[in-house]
């Protein structure tokens, strides 16, 4: 089966939904796809209050933000495809969508916004594949969305923001957090989250890493050990903990496979989370019809993802003449100002520099990258 649309948005998280809102408001014919039965992405499981800029969603819980976005999208004329996985995005711009019971649909869209989000990182230790070892996001999904606890006694690996927040949410759901371990010598999460944990009495062990998981069929325990400055375990410091679940909160990686298969230029930007497609300040990649937003183009917060989605939606509308240059410019500037505020502080400044660098390389690759149609044009001129 084949379908056509003006715009296809891949992913219904904060970034994808925000882009859909902007496009719906200018009456574009737009399809939003998500592989879950419900849109909202990771917002659906974030029951903590957002922290950061007062102007932007701070003090609100992720689940409430998701509901509001969903309501706005449902009022607009946007086609939503739940339980649809995009299998491939070929170099002619066709999307191969596995649309639940209707089978494979090939969708041709004039513009595509990629908002696929990120994958959780993992790292190897002895028996690291045992059932009962899971990502922090997985635990969050189970306990906050479906209200099921995958374990009673949990060891949290990683004391970044995610590790600290999920540990606190585990306590709220009624589980026991035995310890939070962190291989670096300091806690990298925000101080508010650290203090929240310390008040509950859960120990945060820095310079400590996991050596192995114990158990035959499922996790029955864990062995942790102190590590030196180069993360090598120090012999003789091993300790055994009786836990039934090991939760890994060791960062995220952008989900770039669709952009990659489409032929977007991928570069390594460790500050933004690793290998990511190049994109400019309008979220456009080096391929004119492809835009990228949210965690799949830099690991940041949901509030950033929403602004990026907004910018992409406006740019797409502008490129299809649904918005005139002046209105689009004004709308984009508002969103860009908020983004600038969200990326303040020392860490935000490094992110901004990295994004500016990416923007420059986008211009470069747009002009110099192998591009089938441009290549044909060159050939025809030459002939």
């Amino acid at each position, binding site marked *: 089966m084949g379908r056509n649309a003006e715009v296809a948005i891949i992913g219904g998280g904060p970034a994808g939904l925000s882009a859909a809102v902007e496009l719906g408001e200018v009456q574009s014919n737009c399809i939003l796809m998500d592989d879950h039965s419900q849109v909202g992405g990771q917002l659906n499981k974030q029951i903590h209050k957002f922290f950061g800029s007062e102007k932007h969603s701070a003090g609100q819980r992720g689940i409430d933000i998701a509901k509001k976005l969903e309501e706005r999208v449902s009022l607009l004329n946007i086609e939503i495809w739940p339980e649809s996985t995009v299998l491939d995005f070929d170099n002619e711009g066709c999307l191969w969508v596995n649309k639940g019971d209707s089978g494979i649909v090939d969708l041709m869209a004039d513009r595509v916004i990629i908002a696929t989000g990120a994958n959780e990182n993992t790292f190897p230790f002895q028996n690291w594949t045992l059932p*009962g070892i899971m990502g922090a996001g997985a635990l969050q999904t*189970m306990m906050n969305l479906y209200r099921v606890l995958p374990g009673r006694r949990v060891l949290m690996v990683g004391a970044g923001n995610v590790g600290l927040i999920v540990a606190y949410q585990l306590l*709220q759901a009624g589980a026991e957090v035995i310890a939070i371990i962190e291989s670096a010598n300091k806690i990298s999460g925000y101080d508010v989250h650290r203090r929240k944990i310390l008040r509950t009495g859960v120990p945060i062990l820095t310079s400590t890493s996991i050596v192995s998981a114990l158990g035959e069929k499922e996790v029955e325990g864990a062995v942790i050990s102190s590590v030196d400055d180069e993360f090598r375990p120090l012999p003789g410091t091993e300790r055994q903990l009786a836990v039934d679940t090991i939760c890994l909160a060791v960062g995220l990686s952008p989900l770039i496979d669709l952009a990659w298969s489409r032929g977007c230029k991928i570069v390594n930007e460790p500050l933004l989370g690793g290998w990511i497609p190049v994109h400019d300040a309008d979220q456009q990649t080096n391929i004119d019809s492809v835009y990228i937003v949210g965690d799949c183009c830099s690991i940041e917060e949901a509030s950033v993802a929403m602004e990026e989605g907004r910018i992409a939606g406006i740019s797409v509308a502008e490129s299809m003449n649904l918005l005139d240059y002046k209105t689009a410019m004004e709308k984009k500037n508002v969103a860009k100002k908020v983004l600038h505020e969200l990326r303040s502080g020392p860490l935000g400044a490094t992110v901004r520099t990295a994004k500016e660098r990416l923007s420059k390389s986008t211009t470069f690759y747009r002009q110099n990258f192998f591009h089938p149609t441009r290549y044909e044009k060159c050939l025809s001129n030459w002939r």
Partner: protein
Amino acid sequence: MGEKLLRVEKHPVLGDAKQKESWISITIDGRKIKAREGEPIASALIASGSRVFRYTLKKDKPRGLFCAIGRCNDCLMIVDGKANVRTCITPVRDGMIVETQKGDGKSNGKKC
């Protein structure tokens, strides 16, 4: 681990679990379990106390839920005779038959 313990009944942010919820039943390896309507297969299984979802093809090692967002393929199971179904994003249906997957699930571990 009992089922009561694993379902979160009271929650300081989300509130108490709804009393009037529709429950359906699914079968896992011949055992009937209760599932909440609309939840994925994986959460119903975890609530019933089983965490091993499949065994790997080469080394026959157990695997369970890992990412819960349909990315990692650790939670593949045989659902209504269809192998390699991602149970973490497939909602339950009444009377669904779920089996632990052995290997690629084609003959479910039996040598043909």
